[in-house]
């Protein structure tokens, strides 16, 4: 490699490091500024679940306002997502158990097609209401990046907990018991 190329590589690496450091500093500064205002801290003040309307598989819409006041589990999934496939049997099992105790279970398919979502629901014998989030409206309102993610909403409409990644029966029981 020529000297010129080495110089260029060094310059490019330095530029990259400066850029990364700049962004990191910006992030840290912003976060520190936010932490100075404790009332805005998510750790102290939990967020309310956003309002949403889900177009259900099989017809009809489900409005969040209709179920607000009950303990709610919202699971975001996609038919092509491997961990979503892994966790769905556990969610269905727990749904069978906790539905009788007043918990509302909802499945929201994101980045998916209706046909594939339907196949998924049939394959995993999902018995709770499921709908497709076309246009990613609900996904955006929850601030979601990555699937699966499961939200646990309490009777006051507050997101009590959320889990990014596949859930287990134990985790579901533990979090749902807190909502009851």
């Amino acid at each position, binding site marked *: 490699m020529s000297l010129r190329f080495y110089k260029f590589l060094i310059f490019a690496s330095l530029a990259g490091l400066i850029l990364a450091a700049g*962004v990191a500093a910006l992030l840290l500064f*912003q976060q520190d500024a*936010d932490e100075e205002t404790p009332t805005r801290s998510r*750790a102290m003040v939990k967020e309310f679940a956003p309002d949403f309307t889900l177009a259900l598989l099989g017809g009809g819409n489900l409005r969040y306002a209709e179920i607000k006041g009950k303990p709610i589990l919202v699971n975001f999934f996609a038919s092509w997502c491997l961990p979503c496939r892994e966790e769905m049997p556990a969610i269905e099992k727990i749904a069978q158990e906790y539905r009788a105790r007043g918990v509302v279970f909802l499945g929201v398919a*994101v980045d*998916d097609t209706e046909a594939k979502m339907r196949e998924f629901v049939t394959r995993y014998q999902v018995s709770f209401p499921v709908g497709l989030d076309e246009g990613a409206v609900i996904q955006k309102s929850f601030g979601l990046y*990555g699937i699966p993610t499961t939200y646990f909403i309490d009777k006051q409409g507050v997101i009590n907990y*959320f889990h990014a990644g*596949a859930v287990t029966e134990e985790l579901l029981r533990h979090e749902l018991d807190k909502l009851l």
Partner: protein
Amino acid sequence: MGQGGSVIGAGEAVWGGFSAFFSIWQLCILQFSPFFLAFIVGTFFCTPGQRHAPPVIRATLPASLAWTLSFTLLYSLLIASALPLSRPLISNLGSLRIIAGVLILLVSLYIFLMGRRASLAKWHRPSTLIVLAMVIGISFALMYSPCITPMLSDIMGLATQRGTAREGWYLAFLYGLGTSIAMCAFAWALIAVLSRSAAVWRKARWISDACVLVLVVLGLMNISGLMTFYKAFLLGLAL
């Protein structure tokens, strides 16, 4: 709110991302890995006036580094949703994905023209490739819907809470870095094998054009929203 994450070391996070590329999780990374290969291979083979393959690392290292940096930075920001900068990005993902599609089309146009217009050769420099690679890296992070692996789940447990968001972002950066390193290594190996053959080099323009086509399809899928069908049908078929 959010789950508490387990303690993950920096090396462990890099390794987690690296090994994910060579595991069952590749099915999820398929959302962008073929398109990254198309970009790197396309820019390598579109080199105008070149009769023999240039050294692989020398020709692809600047673009690979730039892609790695830009993709990893934005990906980790999107993962760390508790950071103030992340929420607006996530809220505007739909619009940003359309912009990403347009940018991908522009990069495709560059590769297409570069293989045809000798007069444009003066623009085909590492600095140009670095800019293009950064554009592609940012675009890929925006269009990606990560499947949350067990390690990523732990990282997100930190990154989605205000109190631990910085640590989570750092680990997400390292995890993304691991995946990017694996992808670059795979791309270099592929190009090294391809460029060894004189017959392949004689078909350089065809290869480059095929890569352009792949990138054009990706750009159009992002603009039209058909990326959802790619994910649902092609990735679903693989499972």
